[in-house]
């Protein structure tokens, strides 16, 4: 059964997410009514931005596969731009960076045509070798090594990793009740829910810091609590939204919990190195787009390859 083109399980999952947002908005209204003197601007902006993000995402997912792939390629563009704007680059690399941007439409074209072999090697092999070739032709050798490293890291994180979300939409459908939209919903929801769970467990029980130098608010209690919650949740939700059975769902949950944590702290380390708090100001209440995509950059490829190995 499908509603508005969306297979039923995915449709119910979307309704559940909208339900959570309604609860969040109501809670915020209740809080500001109860404590009129407290400033809830940031919480309000944050929830409002969530509404926008979810609305946009659900619209493109409901539209069709190509629209969703174009949308995700645009996310890659915004993420790559934000990353290259904050990390050290040389003025002489402008033309090389221009080519790095061009890798986005090409990579997503492989995704849209379902050419798996090319999708998986285009950035790690061709772009990896090509960008330094272009740099050599410009000929500025001062800072060459660092620059080549930064650029390759940038396209791997922002183009290669994020394009795995899009390739989930291109895989053959194995769970008819959820469709491929279910895979994307599962990945994104579990990743974001993991962030929330780690935060909540950390607030409730957090005592022992994991990596105080990078992220003073991250604790072992939050990390383990979040990981267990997500693992259990993923076990139960996976059979509904993905082709994975319960025990494989648990595996996916462990992967998302671990990878989500590391994605978060890896991007935190980048910001700490640059001595900035947010990577941009695109999303009110959240910061830049990387502040929202940090965990997904790590969970997307790892979940994808787990799924690919287990079912395809």
């Amino acid at each position: 059964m499908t509603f508005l083109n969306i297979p039923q399980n995915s449709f119910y999952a979307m309704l559940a997410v909208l339900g959570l947002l309604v609860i969040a908005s109501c809670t915020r209204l209740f809080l500001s009514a109860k404590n009129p003197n407290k400033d809830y601007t940031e919480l309000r902006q944050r929830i409002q931005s969530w509404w926008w993000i979810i609305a946009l995402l659900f619209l493109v997912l409901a539209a069709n596969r190509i629209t969703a792939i174009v949308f995700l390629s645009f996310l890659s563009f915004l993420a790559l731009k934000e990353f290259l704007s904050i990390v050290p680059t040389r003025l002489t690399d402008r033309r090389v960076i221009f080519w790095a941007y061009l890798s986005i439409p090409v990579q997503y074209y492989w995704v849209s045509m379902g050419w798996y072999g090319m999708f998986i090697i285009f950035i790690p092999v061709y772009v990896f070798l090509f960008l330094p070739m272009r740099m050599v032709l410009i000929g500025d050798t001062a800072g060459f090594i660092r620059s080549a490293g930064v650029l390759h890291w940038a396209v791997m994180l922002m183009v290669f990793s994020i394009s795995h979300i899009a390739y989930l939409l291109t895989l053959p459908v194995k769970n008819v009740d959820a469709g491929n939209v279910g895979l994307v919903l599962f990945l994104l929801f579990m990743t974001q829910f993991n962030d929330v769970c780690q935060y909540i467990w950390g607030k409730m029980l957090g005592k022992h810091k994991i990596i105080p130098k990078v992220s003073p608010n991250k604790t072992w209690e939050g990390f383990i609590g979040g990981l267990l919650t997500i693992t259990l949740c993923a076990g139960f939700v996976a059979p509904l939204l993905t082709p994975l059975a319960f025990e494989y769902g648990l595996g996916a949950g462990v992967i998302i919990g671990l990878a989500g944590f590391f994605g978060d702290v890896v991007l935190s380390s980048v910001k700490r190195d640059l001595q900035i708090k947010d990577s941009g100001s695109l999303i009110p209440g959240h910061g830049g787009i990387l502040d929202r995509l940090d965990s997904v950059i790590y969970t997307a490829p790892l979940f994808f390859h787990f799924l690919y190995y287990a079912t395809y």
Partner: protein
Amino acid sequence: MNRIIKILFFALIIKPLVLIVLGINLRGREKLPVKGPAIIAANHNSHLDALVLMSLYPLTSIHKIRPVAAADYFLSNRLLAWVSLHCLDIVPFNRSGHVDKDKLFSGCHQALDNGDILILFPEGSRGSPEKISKIKKGLFYLARERSDIKITPIAIYGLGRALPRGEALFVPFNCDVIIGDPLPDAGDSTVFIKNISQSFAELFTQCLTRHSDK
């Protein structure tokens, strides 16, 4: 008619370009002067500077925002002059040095009397990418005669990478736009220039993209 051309130019070309392809990290939005007469003093590294600052304003008030621009450059050929006068509605400024001080600012005074918001670049020229050039005294002479008008300093960073002087290839980069508190009154030009330099230096510390140049 000019107003319509300017609105279309910003709605269809400049705003999508600046807000989507380029991207702005904006700080201190609430300090942006919304009603004229007012003066915005910004640092200058790229042709995009004025376009980015104008894009901060809604289309309904965009006709009130007018960049002060060098006549010798922007009116140098017919196409550029048409775009400058109709799409951007610049206040032409003669920087050759052959004009009387009183007449030099007559265009600016007229615009301020009209309730417009002027965008001025006190360095007088774009200079080298991401470097502040020496601040000229011109703005001080204008400010001295209009002590009633607020001058809001705005620091822009990152556009020198997106489109540096002498380059035709546009490469997308987020830029920082940091809006500061209005400048205090100053009795003489040295104090004035010191104030504005200090303000820029303070605003630059809030940039997100400043570490990206090494």
